[in-house]
C-alpha cells in the first residue's frame, strides 16, 4: 500500500507556551485541534474518513496526560486504527509519520493523522537542559561532565574543521542561507535576514558555534493527513507520494565505543542508501532536501552523507550558493531548524509540511521551480540513528 500526504497544516514556530502564573494560558489541545481541522480542510476530506491518529509523546511540561486519547475526545473522532503517542528524541516526529503510515500500509485504515504539539519555551533553557542532557548522553558516564545536546554537534564541528581545513565562517554561511530562506516562510520563527558578520558576532554557545549557529527554542503544532495513494487519487487534487524510506540505528549512543569517523554520519549514509534503493532514485535526481540539522555543522555533514555534495565540500557548496534557493540543490527551503524553528518532538513534522508545500507547488516566493522529488531526514543523538523519506510530486 503506497502512502500519500494529502493535507498539511502548522502554526508558525515561536514562543507560544504560557506560564502557570499567566491569567490566560495557551492550551496545547486547543491549538492542536485547530491545526488538525486546518489540515483536514486542506485535504478536502470528511473527518469520518480518518481511521487513526498518531501523536508525539508530549513534553514533560504538558499538563494534560494521555494527550492522544484526550485529543480523540476533543475532536470527537472515533477510530478503528490506533490512537497512540510515540517518542524517539529528535526523531519523534518522523516516527509519528511512520506509525501513521504503517496503519495505512496494514490495510487497517485508509486515512491517518500524524500530528502533535511541542510546547517548552516558558521553561528556561538552563532548567530544560538539566533534563535534556540526560537524553543525549549516558547519565552516569557523560552527563556528570556537562555534555549538552548540542555539545556533541560542536565537537563534530571541531573535528570537521580540523580534518578539512574549513573555517568557522564557512560553516556560519549555512545560518545566513537558512535565514534568507526563512524570510520567505510564514511559518518561520526568525525572518529578518542576517549577514555573515552578524552570525560571527554572536556570543559563543558551544565553541566554535555561536548563537545563530545553534537552534532556537521553539514551540509548535503541526498535522499531516496521510492516506493510501489510491484514496488520494480520488480527491482530484495535487498530492505527495512517499516513494522511498530508509532507517538505520548504528547501535551507539552519542559516540561509538570504537574510534570511528564521527563526522561521517554513518547512520544517515546507510538509511539514505536504503531510501534511494527503495525509491529507485539517486541523490542527483533530487530537487530539494529538507534535512534535520540543529546546527550549521549538522547541515554540512548530512548533506555530505546523503551525497548531495561531495565529502568535505558541504561548507564550500553552501558558500558557493549551491544549496540556496535557485542553486543546484536547495537545502532547508523552510529556513531549517536554525530559522524556521525547532520544537524538537515535532520538528520532523515541520519538514514534512515544507515538503508537502513544495511538492504541491504552493510554497510561494520560496517555491523550488518545478519541484518533483524531495528528501527529508530526521535523527536522534549525534545522527546515531537516521530516518529518511523520499517524496514525489503527484500533480
Amino acid at each position, binding site marked *: 500500500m503506497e502512502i500519500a500526504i494529502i493535507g498539511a497544516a502548522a502554526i508558525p514556530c515561536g514562543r507560544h507556551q504560557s506560564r502557570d502564573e499567566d491569567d490566560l494560558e495557551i492550551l496545547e489541545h486547543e491549538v492542536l485541534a485547530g491545526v488538525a481541522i486546518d489540515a483536514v480542510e486542506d485535504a478536502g476530506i470528511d473527518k469520518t474518513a480518518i481511521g487513526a491518529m498518531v501523536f508525539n509523546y508530549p513534553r514533560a511540561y504538558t499538563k494534560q496526560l494521555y494527550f492522544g486519547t484526550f485529543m480523540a475526545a476533543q475532536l470527537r473522532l472515533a477510530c478503528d486504527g490506533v490512537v497512540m503517542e510515540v517518542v524517539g528524541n529528535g526523531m519523534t516526529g518522523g516516527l509519528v509519520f511512520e506509525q501513521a503510515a504503517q496503519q495505512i500500509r496494514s490495510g487497517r485504515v485508509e486515512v491517518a493523522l500524524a500530528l502533535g504539539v511541542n510546547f517548552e519555551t516558558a521553561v528556561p533553557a538552563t532548567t530544560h537542559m538539566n533534563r535534556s542532557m540526560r537524553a543525549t548522553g549516558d547519565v552516569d558516564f557523560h552527563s556528570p561532565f*556537562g555534555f*549538552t545536546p548540542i*555539545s556533541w554537534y560542536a565537537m563534530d564541528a571541531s573535528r570537521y574543521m580540523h580534518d578539512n581545513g574549513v573555517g568557522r565562517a564557512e560553516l556560519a554561511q549555512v545560518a545566513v542561507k537558512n535565514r534568507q530562506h526563512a524570510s520567505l516562510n510564514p511559518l518561520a520563527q526568525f525572518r529578518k535576514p542576517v549577514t555573515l558578520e552578524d552570525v560571527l558576532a554572536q*556570543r559563543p554557545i558551544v565553541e566554535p558555534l555561536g548563537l545563530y549557529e545553534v537552534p532556537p527554542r521553539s514551540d509548535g503544532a503541526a498535522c499531516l493527513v496521510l492516506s493510501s495513494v489510491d484514496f488520494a487519487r480520488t480527491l482530484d487534487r495535487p498530492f505527495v507520494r512517499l516513494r522511498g524510506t530508509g532507517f538505520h540505528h548504528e547501535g551507539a549512543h552519542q559516540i561509538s565505543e570504537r*574510534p*570511528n569517523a*564521527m563526522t561521517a554520519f554513518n547512520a544517515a549514509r546507510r538509511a539514505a542508501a536504503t531510501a534511494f534503493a527503495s525509491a529507485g532514485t539517486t541523490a542527483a535526481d533530487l530537487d530539494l532536501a529538507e534535512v534535520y540539522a540543529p546546527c550549521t555543522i549538522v547541515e554540512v555533514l548530512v548533506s555530505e552523507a546523503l551525497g548531495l555534495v561531495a565529502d568535505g565540500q558541504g561548507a564550500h557548496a553552501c558558500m558557493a550558493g549551491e544549496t540556496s534557493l535557485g542553486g543546484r540543490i536547495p537545502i532547508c527551503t523552510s529556513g531549517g531548524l536554525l530559522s524556521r524553528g525547532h520544537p524538537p518532538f515535532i520538528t520532523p513534522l515541520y519538514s514534512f509540511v515544507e515538503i508537502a508545500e513544495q511538492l504541491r507547488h504552493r510554497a510561494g516566493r520560496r517555491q523550488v521551480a518545478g519541484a518533483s522529488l524531495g528528501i527529508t531526514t530526521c535523527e536522534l543523538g549525534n545522527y546515531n540513528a537516521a530516518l529518511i523519506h523520499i517524496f514525489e510530486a503527484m500533480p
Partner: protein
Amino acid sequence: MTLRIVAMPRRRAYPPRMSAFTRTFWEELASGRFITTQCPECGDIAFPPKPHCPACWHRPVQWIELSGHGRLYARTTVHAAPGRFAEEAPYTVCIVDMAENVRIATRLVGDPSVALDSAMELVVLRYEDGPLFGACAAGTAG
C-alpha cells in the same frame, strides 16, 4: 599506571549513580586506576564498563586496566550550560581515543585550546564528594 589526581574545590554538579557493578569502577578510579570491562571470549573492550559483552553478549566479563593514554579526537567549550553546571561554565568537554582503541567522552582540564590529535592523559578529578575522571594534554597534569 596510576593516574595523577587533580583536586577540584567543589562538589560534583551531577554525580553518577553507583551500582553493585559500577562501584568497582568508581572505587578503583578514586585510587588512581582507570579500569573497564573486556570480554574473555571475543576480546572486545567496552567503555563505559558493562556486565556483559556488547559485541558477543557473553557473560561474565573481566576487569582490565587501561593505560590512561590517548589522543584528542574532538572538543568544545560549553558556554550555555545546564543550570546544575552554571557555576562551572564555561568548561571544556572532549572525546579521547584511548591507546586500547576505546573512545571515551570526558571533561578536558588544563589548556582548553589543546590541538586535536594531541597526546592526552587521563587524570582523576577529586571532587569534595567523590571522583570523576578527566583528560589533559600529556605531561601537563599538575
